[in-house]
């Protein structure tokens, strides 16, 4: 029975521990929100929340209703997502400044050219972008489908109660009855997205 191994009574100085712990917690919390000027934005980081490839598929019975999105496209036309009801709608969140979006743009453009007219529609939602840069992007990648201009992310916010795009790029597939069938966070692949659209398009509304 060595004295060293016997634990001491703990309670007597719990007050001390408690106050020290509280002080430590405050000190840690205090690190945040320091003086202005001490903090610059993430100049080294990507400075946007980038997606890791991740797919969520919803079964027919458990699909959330897509929000009633409407707005002005980059080319200045009014667009209501609801006017596409009856078709499968592929909604892609993108930005011309986002490298993964640039990488997936040829895939989306090609699939759109292939599938539009067969009951599938593509709509882009251009996030945090400069309109001239966005239009140059669309021309460069030969993107034929319209994109809603969403500089303040108001449209992305409307998806918050369903499946919010948690990163850029994100792609949402809406079924013929206006419900969200799948969400892909991160860049899409030609085969993967085509198969997924095909499955949703094959359903009867």
């Amino acid at each position, binding site marked *: *029975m*060595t004295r060293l*191994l*016997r*634990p*001491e009574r*703990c*309670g*007597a100085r*719990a*007050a001390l*521990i*408690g106050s020290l*712990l*509280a002080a*430590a*917690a405050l000190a840690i*919390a205090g690190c*945040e*929100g*320091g003086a*202005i*000027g*001490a*903090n*610059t*934005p*993430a*100049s*080294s*980081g*990507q*400075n946007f*929340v980038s997606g890791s490839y991740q797919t969520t598929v919803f079964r027919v019975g458990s699909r959330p209703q897509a929000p009633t999105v409407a707005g002005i496209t980059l080319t200045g036309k009014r667009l209501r997502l609801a006017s596409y009801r009856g078709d499968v709608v592929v909604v892609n*969140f993108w930005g011309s400044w986002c*490298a*993964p979006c*640039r*990488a997936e743009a040829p895939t989306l453009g090609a699939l759109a050219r292939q599938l539009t007219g067969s009951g599938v529609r593509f709509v882009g939602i251009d996030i*945090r972008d*400069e*309109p*001239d*840069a966005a239009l*140059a*992007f669309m021309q*460069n990648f030969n993107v034929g489908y319209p994109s809603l201009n969403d500089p*303040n*992310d*108001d449209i*992305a*916010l409307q998806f*918050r109660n*369903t499946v*919010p*795009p*948690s*990163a*850029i790029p*994100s792609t949402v597939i809406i079924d013929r009855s206006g419900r969200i069938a799948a969400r892909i966070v991160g860049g899409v692949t030609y085969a993967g997205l085509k198969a997924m659209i095909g499955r949703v398009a094959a359903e009867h509304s």
Partner: protein
Amino acid sequence: MTTAEGDAIEAASDTIESAQGSIAARTGRGPAGRLGVRGWLRWLWRQLTSMRTALILLFLLALASVPGSVLPQEGIDPAAVSQYFVAHPALAPFLNRLSLFSVFAAPWFAAVYLLLFASLAGCVLPRTFRLAGSARQRPPRAPRNLTRLPFTASYATGQQPDEALGKASALLARRRFRLHAGAGWVSAEKGYLREVGNLVFHIALLALLISVGLGGIFGYKANRLLVVGQGFANTPTDLDVFRPGRLVSPSDLQPFSISLQGFTAKYVNSGPEMDQPITYAAPLTYHTSPGAPLRHYVLQVNHPLVVDGVSVYLIGHGYAPEFKVTDGTGRVQFDGPVPFIPVDQSSLTSEGVIKVPDAKPTQLGFAGVFLPTAVDNGGQLQSAFPAALFPRVSLVAYDGNLGMNSGQAQSVYQLDTKGLHQLPVAPRPLAPGQSIKLPGGVGTLTFTGYKQWVSLAITYDPGQLPALVSGITALLGLILSFLVRRRRVFVRALPRADGSTEVVMGGLARSDAAGGFEAEFADLAQHLQELHDGSALPAEQLAQELDQQSAVTAQAHAAGHDPALAGREGSEA
């Protein structure tokens, strides 16, 4: 006499002590003896919940936060982290593997924190139950020999023992003592609030720990840089940095949106304090949710905007020079502000890049420096003041491959020059309105003006208020338990041979808190004696009793069992 001594010690000691003692006796066998798995587990648990382990863990927690203040942290200054990577290419990846660039999110930091939590909870919870028991306890039986207690009084009265005790009970009850009566004696105890204070302190301490944990699980932190005239919504796609707690999903974010209407900064413009900021103000409009009415607020340092419990702090500012870029085909490729990052806080000399990935015939890139108040310092252009009094931009132009189309995410503040080559452009600083024509007809860039930006820190910590409330409650409980003394008063009434009754009073304060019990006891004794119409006992008898008392006290000291001291132990906080 030994029985009397035992009684007195029993009265003075405390059930907590005896419970502790027996536990110590059981575990005291230690690991040397034959212990089963259960024994070992119990021993480990005892070790974990011991005071010493808690102190070591607390020390470790403090030690573990040291690298957090020595090394740059990802969550606070990601720029500094990447600078560190450049400066120490060999060491940085190794440190990164040890999570030393995000100490407070590191697994080992969490391990220390959780162990400390387990240690404190394991210590505080059982103690809470014991305290609850002790707060409900009845006063113990009166010891047989009251004259050995620290405070005593005795006198003779003509009243019968039962009547005398009845009056004593009534008096003690009036003074809000808790009573316990038996044949020929009354015990009374007061100051249970001390135990209540103790209990409140312990429960509040647990609540504090839980609150801190809650903040980490359900809270989040985010950053966003916003140029004047721009807006953003509180959703992950619109945040520059987003650090959610364990159980935060994007749909949990409060759906507010903010638009920056302007930004003004005032600086000291002379004297030794020159360049120092005086005030910052960022007027903004916001909606608490889509469709909610528009509200106004002026954001200032330490005056965060609070929306639905989320605090939005102003943490930085800078300049965003505006550029218009046309490519070789004459098409406008870009026309807007580009946030530049300050590299020198006192002069706000800022650096930034412009990427034009869709330009034809070739992609264009620019790396530049913005000088708010440009002055020529021996051929070298520098910024002399943080306000934009004489703004100039100096740029280096590139063409080639920006490396963006491969899909590899890259910083919007850095140019990957691997696939680029520098264009021979005369290094001439641009004033607002001036352009550079790129050689080979690949494009034109015009510096059209500038805007300011602010960086915002968005923090949501649902544990903050509960932590504050439990912190204050813990303090109040602690103060209560320090101020209130637990004290016992015993009264015995014995019939004497001459038909009168001998009343003996004894008192015991059960803590070493500030004195005052002596006066209280004297006052009680005087009142009781008046009620009993008592008279002092013959001096000879009193002297005899005092002799006995000192003899017993001496014995008790020799045995290491001073009843007064034993009484203190159990009620420590």
